[in-house]
């Protein structure tokens, strides 16, 4: 977890920014966002019941825009209690990194439709508050798939705005999730070597059996200083099949601040 610490991220971004600033045609941006996420989910390892609730949700996004492509690295963190319709509760925590690369060689970076790809890495852990044993379960996946971005800039009352929607769909990757009963994945301790156990615990992630897709729609107000304020609506769904299936639906509303790094 310490690698997600802001003490690590900020110096890394600044150092990375300083290095890339040499390329005068690039732009560097840092987005910080916080808000609420309404999450609903079901883990059949716990029960067939759906658990929902509002969680705190935060993002830190670092973006580099060059003439032909834009890359963003988004660090995400969410935490909060979820309850079912009878009041039983669990605590849900998630942390992840979502990377996008969009290509705009043929069109301007600041408007239009851009294709690209996304890489998503998410770790989810939940602890059931009503179960004495086997109350902890988790899942993790890393996947890659196509992404799409649409930017529409406009002026309103002399101010600069833009609408931006980003969509991603994860197609192929790998996953690790809690076992049929216990927290540890099946096969985790069957072999002597750590790497052998890791391989036994890993399952493939592929679209059709597993799903992860999301949208990020933002209304951005560009200030005269070059920095920006924004609100973002972010629906996402994910489903990990096999063993005890895990399904999740999230809808986050975030307030964002953009700092132009260079």
């Amino acid at each position, binding site marked *: 977890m310490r690698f997600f610490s802001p003490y690590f991220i900020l110096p890394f971004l600044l150092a990375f920014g300083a290095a890339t600033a040499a390329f005068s045609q690039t732009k560097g941006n840092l987005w910080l966002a916080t808000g609420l996420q309404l999450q609903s989910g079901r883990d059949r390892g716990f*029960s067939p019941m759906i658990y929902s609730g509002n969680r705190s949700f935060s993002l830190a996004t670092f973006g580099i825009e060059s003439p032909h492509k834009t890359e963003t690295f988004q660090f995400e963190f969410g935490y909060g209690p979820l309850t079912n319709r*009878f009041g039983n509760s669990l605590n849900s925590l998630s942390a992840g990194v979502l990377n996008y690369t969009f290509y705009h060689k043929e069109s301007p970076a600041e408007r*239009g439709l851009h294709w690209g790809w996304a890489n998503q890495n998410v770790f989810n852990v939940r602890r059931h508050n009503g179960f*004495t*044993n086997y109350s902890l379960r988790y899942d993790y996946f890393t996947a890659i798939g196509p992404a799409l971005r*649409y930017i529409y800039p406009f002026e309103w009352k002399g101010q600069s705005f833009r609408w931006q929607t980003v969509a991603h769909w994860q197609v192929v990757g790998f996953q690790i999730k809690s076992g049929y009963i216990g927290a540890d994945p099946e*096969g985790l*301790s069957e072999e002597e070597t750590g790497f052998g156990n890791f391989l036994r615990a890993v399952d493939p992630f592929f679209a059709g059996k597993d799903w992860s897709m999301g949208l990020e*729609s933002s209304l951005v107000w560009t200030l005269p200083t070059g920095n920006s304020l924004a609100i973002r609506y972010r*629906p996402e769904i994910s489903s990990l099949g096999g063993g005890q299936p895990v399904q999740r639906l999230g809808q986050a509303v975030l307030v964002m601040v953009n700092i132009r790094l260079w």
Partner: protein
Amino acid sequence: MVKQARYFWILVFFQFSCEQWVLPTAPSPDAIEVFDSLWEDVNDRYSFFSHKGIDWEQVRETYRARVSDDIGQLELYELLADMLFELRDGHVNLSTGFNRSRNWEWYQEFPVNYDENLIEQEYLGRDYWISGPLLHQVLDEVLYVNYRSFAQRISEANLQVVVERAKRTRGVIIDVRNNGGGNLSNAALLASAFAEEEMEYARQRIKSGPGPEEFGPWEPMVLSPWEEDTFTGLVIVLTNRRSYSATSFFAQMMNTLPNALLLGDQTGGGGGTPVFGELPNGWTYRFSATQTVDLENRQLEDGVLVDLRLDLDPAAVQRGEDNLIEAAISLLRR
């Protein structure tokens, strides 16, 4: 540009239409759905069907015929409780707001072999030591320790006191009769104070799929000596049929130690670690999802056998004696 924007609205629509598909609605609380949910979860995750020779399909046929949509809540509870009773397992409960089902036959049909008042009056007396949940008293140069629930946490400081006192005696009696279990870590900590070296005491496997024989591999359960000085003198553990669950595990740990002896009646069992679940109407339940065997492949679910079988003698009780404690003292002083 307008055409491009249209693609996005299609994408948004697609995303929201996936909601029901990815996240199905919660099951309905209808009686039949509640029954099926419980039966299926037990069918998939319960660990002792083969060991106990239970025909769960037959159980379903018997009980499902009695479920109807207009069945009352109390009637449904009783029906489900009766169905779960067929598992003959003390780790099986159905909890509702108004009642909690259980099967306590693992001790109810056997001698009690324990009289707490007698122990308080004749053995602990008025000046016994209380170290956390451990009640202890020196009796004829033997340290008698009474521990009533493994749910009560033992600290290392508590244990240190007991070990130091034990070292000044000729042996220790640990009385876990009527101790219905609790936290396995307390059992392991207490046993670790009497272990000289690391040793395997049992093996456990966990359900890994819905088939009745789908289990993960057998994993060794290991007892490690306490970090501090351990007591390696003689230890006698008193058990009865109400020694259950974590207490059975404790008895098995002590059973493997060369310096320990079990005396009394076998433990009640409880060798399967319970997993929890909840029904579409909000009721919760638990049942065994693991199997644990001793070093001779005997299921702890059937109880841990004692080295010296002895029942509490009513005539001794009349005389103000617990003949199990007396026998243990006699053995340790020998």
